[in-house]
């Protein structure tokens, strides 16, 4: 598919549709600008943004004075209201960092001091009794309690940011892999898999590929080292015994936050992540030894979780810019206009707490552009999104009203998560044309439950055909991931 007006000049091209790219796009859509987002995958949030814990961080794990700390705290102040306005489900759960002994307590004190310096609100060291009161299933002697930590669905947040941007005039193009960048006096010409795109500014939010994209413009100031984290997901019944994220005392080298337990909005509990440098930026494999290790580590902190079955496994890659064996602690976020290429802005190393920090990082782009040219706000910027109610969360009266008004609200497509045909229909008709099974899953929860799509997949395959897709064009995640090879008997 060729883009219609390939010689169009955009004011800003954002490369990468993760949470940072989408937040940047939305921030730009406040101004009299013409921004476009180019994403190589066939949906938003397909990279780093879907493979994490979905925790809203309160800012005590990051070094005082760093951009990570500033952006984390600023993002924390913004993200709850932002999520509420966009109707993205979240919950301010609080969080416990649990220590088994006195040695661990000293480390908790240091974390608390760092958090206090950074501006994290309400941190408290609590004893075993308080731990039991917060979370009866958790084993620990001391804990750092952070009341402002929360949970959010990272991919729903990412998609909502993009929808908000689009509502305010920004363009989003999926399946556009940027392969080269040509620097002209007044613009950059980006070669993509569907023709060139020209823009006066380029914001490189390419996550794992940010070094390669930066290299296209001759501004390779950092290298991305993929750091793999495997996760397991426990059945939603596990959510009944865990209300807030439970973390261990983090490792001294600050390479990660350790293997933790994170409840999700609908109940399933995440175990993970592991941490391991890998060579391949596409390596999303789950491995047997890590699966076993995750369970062992997690069940040590919360033994009662051991009785719940695993319903799914996934893997995320963190885009570290400090390589294996490097000393001096974790690298800070990089957000900077290239020295060699004016009007080209690179984001580098946006790992945790990037999800929380995204709204604040997005504002930095506006500041950078604002130093070079006058930006004027657009009239009628619409900050919110309409609510798309979930059948599963409606009460009897609302369910009856909807089913009476539209029979598609009466047709159940997913038995585990109670999703109706009306919700699937809305998801399929999303404004970006993302119509893979995974795209529908992220928008509706179809396939995220106990049966992992056994019930809903044949139904969604039927609905997608009713919406005009040929069977052979139905995919798991776009591209070559086709589900079936056409009809048996044509």
């Amino acid at each position, binding site marked *: 598919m060729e883009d219609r007006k390939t010689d169009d000049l955009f004011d800003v091209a954002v490369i990468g549709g993760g949470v940072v790219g989408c937040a940047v796009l939305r921030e730009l859509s406040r101004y009299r600008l013409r921004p476009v987002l180019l994403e190589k995958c066939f949906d938003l949030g397909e990279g780093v943004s879907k493979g994490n814990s979905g925790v809203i961080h309160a800012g005590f794990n990051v070094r005082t004075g760093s951009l990570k700390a500033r952006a984390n705290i600023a993002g924390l102040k913004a993200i709850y209201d932002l999520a509420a306005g966009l109707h993205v489900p979240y919950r301010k759960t609080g969080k416990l960092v649990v220590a088994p002994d006195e040695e661990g307590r000293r480390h908790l004190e240091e974390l608390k001091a760092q958090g206090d310096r950074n501006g994290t609100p309400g941190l408290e060291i609590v004893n075993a009794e308080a731990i039991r009161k917060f979370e009866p299933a958790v084993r620990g002697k001391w804990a750092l309690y952070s009341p402002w930590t929360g949970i959010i669905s990272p991919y729903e947040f990412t998609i909502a940011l993009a929808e908000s941007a689009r509502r305010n005039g920004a363009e989003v193009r999926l399946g556009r892999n940027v392969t080269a960048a040509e620097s002209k006096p007044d613009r950059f010409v980006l070669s993509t898999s569907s023709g060139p795109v020209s823009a006066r500014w380029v914001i490189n939010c390419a996550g794992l590929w940010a070094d390669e994209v930066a290299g296209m413009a001759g501004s390779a100031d950092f290298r991305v080292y993929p750091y793999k984290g495997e996760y397991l997901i426990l059945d939603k019944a596990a959510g009944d015994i865990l209300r807030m994220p439970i973390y261990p005392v983090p490792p001294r080298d600050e390479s990660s936050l350790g293997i933790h337990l994170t409840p999700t909005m609908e109940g399933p509990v995440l175990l993970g992540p592991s941490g391991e440098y890998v060579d391949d930026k596409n390596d999303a494999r789950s491995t047997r030894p890590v699966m076993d290790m995750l369970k062992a580590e997690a069940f040590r902190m919360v033994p009662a979780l051991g009785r719940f079955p695993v319903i799914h496994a996934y893997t995320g890659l963190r885009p570290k810019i400090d390589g294996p064996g490097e000393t001096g602690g974790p690298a800070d976020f990089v957000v900077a206009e290239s020295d060699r290429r004016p009007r080209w802005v690179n984001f580098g190393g946006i790992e945790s707490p990037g999800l929380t920090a995204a709204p604040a990082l997005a504002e930095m782009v506006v500041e950078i552009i604002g130093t070079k040219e006058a930006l004027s706000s657009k009239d009628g910027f619409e900050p919110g999104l309409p609510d798309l109610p979930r059948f599963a969360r409606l009460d009897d009266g609302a369910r009856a009203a909807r089913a009476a008004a539209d029979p598609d609200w009466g047709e159940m497509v997913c038995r585990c998560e109670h999703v109706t045909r009306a919700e699937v229909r809305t998801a399929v008709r999303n404004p970006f044309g993302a119509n893979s099974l995974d795209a529908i899953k992220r928008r509706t929860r179809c396939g995220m439950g106990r049966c992992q799509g056994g019930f809903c997949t044949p139904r969604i395959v039927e609905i997608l*055909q009713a919406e005009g897709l040929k069977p052979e064009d139905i995919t798991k995640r776009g591209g070559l991931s086709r589900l079936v090879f056409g*009809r048996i*008997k*044509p």
Partner: protein
Amino acid sequence: MTDRLTCLLCPIGCELEVEAGGGDVRVRGHQCDKGIDFASEEVLRPKRNLTTSVPLKGTVDRMVSVRLSDRVPREMIFPILAEITTLRPSAPVRRGDVLIADVCGTGVDVIATRTVASSG
């Protein structure tokens, strides 16, 4: 020559030992007399039913399932499947309707195993 096989006539699945030689078949392990007939047939000339499904005429996804009215020699399975591949029954179809009579000259029919209304 001794052949071990499981009787398929009912879910009990008796394990039969069959000795065949000189036109004679000797069976051990059967819980009922049907086992003897089964073993002889299974060793000398096995028979099978077959089931599949085909789309209704003019559609690609409204399926009607079919089977044979009786079992046929096992080697007839693929010739009959080839016959059925191009079968496109017209709705309405009733369970038991003969869709292909005397398929491949076997003396058995291909019959519908479900009822499909004219529309819907």
